């Protein structure tokens, strides 16, 4: 049964095309002719969700199966939600416009912690019981994946099962198991029992936690023998042969990343110690330039987008970049398509490339030194020196660029006021560099923007043991910086510490924090990553109502022997390695990146990507 959306309802909300689907390259199937219906849910708006590459890949991949219809679902904006509730319209999918509550699977991708209340709100709008224990036979299975799933516990009470790591293989295995199960008409629990042994599947209902008196975790236990107690992430070894869509949905309204996206590689070699992506996506696996070229041309022919962008964690590290970009530039020029370059490490090669690719506006170059002093950059293993940075901006200014954005973090472990001051000093040096460039070869009107975000300690990083600065300390550091950044060419942006504080709680939250999510949602929290809807006071009320101290999660230094809520998840990087990295951080020692040498993080056990080059040479397979 389709839901009915009359014109006057759609006319009364902002951007009705968010809800009407039917875009070019969207899949059209007859729901009656498939065995499995999968609602792929992104817990944010259409514009944000449609910009997400992972969703586009899995949407295409699931729909390649003739037995499955995967449809898209986004969080309706506040105005639409109100109209839906008024008119008793349940959450529906864009493709068939049918209620999500009738699907076989409701799958969420978890990209950031501040989307968790939207997950609950969408379940509620779909009429699906929020708590997994309340779901009945015949109701959908709620599953989740994505980077935040690596610490699944805050959502463990709401999700039937999680999929760890890259989804291309595991999701097909789950669909196959489901088809079999459905034909046998077995129980809900029986299905979960069948998939629990698939590598990468975590069924939270099959495990329990016990706690010590001080509130830390005592033990994580399987409720029955035979359930795996280590859940290992899945990765794709060979990116050239894995599925990549030939066509992507072309939205009718502008979305955040409104262009063709080409994923060059997965993983990152650099190992910045604050960066969760740098550890959980290891090892680096590249696509070949030939394969990428083929992908680019096919996608361009099917979408007609005016721009194509190369994306990866640290794109300038791609080994085939010169080859790829020069041939792509030619192909795309002929098709009247722009090549959008990502933030590149600046050298003469990349400058020339940017010159060719962008032709236009020479503004907006971005750099992320992350910390203001060399000492602190060594602590976080950010292999950028002041000299590198100044050379790069110097080159850019000579090339006619006049806008530079500098990204930093405040609240990093071991940070002192001197380090904070270093941010302002570095900003000033960038301005000075501009004046070194002869007047006739530099562009007028320099603008340097300094942005600081607040450090959030994340699981599976060397800083997972570290406390976050209190909100007061963060504010103090921000006002100090505001005072120190005085040059008329410098602008300063900062993030409110409240959001970072909540992120810190849920990034490292345990199963008990799920109650806070539920309470916060009851108190009206949703779209928490949207400033205008963020209700910090209600969040604090929720903690209080649940008797949970957020500082215990955000601001506490953990002991090295503490059991973490995510210890049963295995991302390949060993805890021993992270511990060693934590020690090196305290010693202000840097660790070389994987391109220079292997430091034995443990990921080599996957036997693919960059690690293979080291095997046989050096202890590439870690220390556990």
């Amino acid at each position: 049964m389709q839901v009915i959306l009359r014109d006057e309802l759609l006319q009364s909300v902002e951007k009705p095309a968010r809800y009407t689907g039917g875009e070019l390259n969207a899949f059209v199937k007859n729901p009656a002719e498939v065995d499995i219906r999968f609602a792929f849910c992104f817990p944010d708006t259409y514009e944000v969700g449609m910009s997400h590459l992972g969703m586009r890949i899995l949407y295409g991949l699931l729909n390649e199966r003739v037995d499955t219809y995967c449809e898209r679902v986004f969080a309706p904006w506040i105005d639409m939600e109100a109209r839906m509730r008024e008119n008793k319209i349940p959450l529906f999918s864009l493709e068939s416009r049918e209620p999500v509550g009738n699907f076989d699977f409701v799958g969420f991708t978890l990209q950031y912690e501040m989307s968790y209340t939207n997950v609950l709100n969408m379940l509620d709008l779909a009429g699906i019981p929020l708590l997994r224990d309340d779901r009945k036979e015949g109701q959908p299975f709620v599953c989740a994946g994505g980077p935040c799933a690596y610490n699944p516990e805050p959502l463990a009470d709401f999700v039937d099962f999680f999929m760890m790591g890259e989804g291309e293989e595991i999701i097909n295995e789950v669909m196959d198991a489901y088809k079999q199960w459905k034909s046998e008409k077995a129980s809900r629990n029986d299905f979960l029992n069948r998939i629990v042994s698939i590598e990468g599947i975590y069924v939270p209902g099959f495990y329990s936690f016990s706690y010590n008196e001080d509130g830390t975790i005592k033990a994580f236990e399987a409720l029955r023998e035979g359930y795996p107690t280590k859940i290992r992430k899945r990765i794709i070894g060979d990116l050239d042969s894995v599925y990549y869509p030939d066509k992507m949905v072309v939205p009718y309204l502008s979305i955040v990343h409104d262009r063709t996206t080409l994923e060059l590689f997965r993983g990152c070699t650099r190992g910045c110690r604050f960066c969760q992506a740098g550890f959980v996506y290891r090892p680096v696996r590249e696509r070949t330039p030939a394969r990428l070229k083929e992908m680019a041309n096919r996608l361009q022919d099917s979408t007609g987008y005016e721009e194509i962008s190369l994306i990866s964690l640290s794109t300038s590290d791609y080994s085939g970049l010169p080859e790829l970009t020069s041939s792509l530039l030619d192909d795309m020029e002929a098709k009247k398509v722009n090549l959008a370059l990502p933030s590149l490490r600046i050298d003469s090669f990349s400058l020339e490339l940017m010159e060719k690719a962008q032709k236009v506006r020479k503004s907006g170059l971005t750099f992320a030194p992350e910390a203001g002093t060399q000492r602190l950059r060594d602590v976080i293993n950010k292999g950028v020196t002041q000299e590198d940075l100044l050379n790069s901006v110097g080159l850019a200014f000579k090339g006619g660029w006049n806008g530079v954005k500098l990204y930093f973090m405040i609240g990093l472990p071991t940070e002192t006021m001197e380090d904070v001051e270093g941010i302002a000093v570095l900003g000033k040096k960038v301005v000075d560099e501009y004046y070194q460039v002869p007047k006739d070869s530099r562009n007028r009107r320099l603008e340097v923007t300094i942005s600081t975000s607040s450090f959030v300690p994340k699981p599976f990083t060397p800083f997972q043991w570290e406390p976050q600065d209190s909100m007061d300390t963060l504010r103090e550091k921000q006002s100090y910086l505001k005072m120190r950044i005085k040059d008329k060419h410098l602008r300063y942006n900062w993030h409110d510490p409240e959001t970072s504080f909540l992120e810190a709680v849920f990034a490292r939250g345990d199963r008990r924090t799920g109650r806070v999510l539920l309470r916060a949602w009851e108190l009206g929290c949703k779209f928490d990553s949207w400033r205008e809807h963020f209700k910090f006071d209600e969040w604090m009320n929720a903690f209080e109502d649940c008797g949970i101290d957020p500082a215990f999660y955000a601001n506490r230094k953990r002991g090295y022997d503490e059991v973490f809520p995510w210890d049963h998840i295995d991302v390949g990087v060993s805890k021993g390695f992270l511990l060693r990295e934590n020690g090196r951080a305290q010693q202000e020692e840097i660790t070389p990146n994987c391109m220079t040498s292997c430091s034995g993080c443990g990921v080599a056990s996957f036997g693919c990507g960059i690690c293979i080059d080291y095997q046989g040479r050096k202890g590439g397979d870690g220390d556990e």
Partner: protein
Amino acid sequence: MNSLRIGFTRGEGVKFISHLDLMKVFERAIRRSNLPIAYSQGFNPHPQMVFGLPLAVGMTSECECADFELTEEIAPGQFMERLNKSLPEAIRITAAAHKSSKKNIMASIAGADYVLEIFSDEDISFHTAKQRVGSLLNRESIKVLKEAKGKDRSTAFREVEIRPLILNIELEPIECRPEGYEIFQSAFVIKAGFKAGSEANLRPELFINALCEQANISVVASRIHRKALYVCVGGRMIDPMDEAALI
């Protein structure tokens, strides 16, 4: 320079996209189709195309039109076929023809026909409705308030005279209601011809406002479809695809 004019329809599937986004849909379809369309010069080249009267968000149409500049000669039929292959299903090109007239389509539009389905939460008989509409039209002057967005995004209202912009009106009973519209007490179809274009233009919503406020027909929902567009050539209102409009 070669020019082509096309006529196209906009169906239910694309009724909620803005005029600007529609242009993007065409731009991308052109890129997919590899048709020899001229691009503007400059850093951000755009295909050279001009659309007729923009359709408001929420309306469907069977009579949109647009002009394209080409870099090489191509048979109109072939152009239509190839572009149709690239366009989403909800947009269909129904006619294409060479155009030698230099007149800009946007500037030439002079009139438009609409089919308005209107729904009321009051039980109004067809007879009553006809009387009420009739007496509204018998007036010499119909003034309605029109929203005008100020520069500071504030909304102001301005009184405008719409009677001379109404060319013809015909009220009919509705034959079959679309799904979801059974809940309304009464429903009618109005076939309307209005002046349209850059010189004088009556938006159908404004006419519906007049029905509500001055003809005592409370319209709580409506569906609007554009049936025809006209250009004025030698004092005659003709179809933009007509020979006389193309040369």
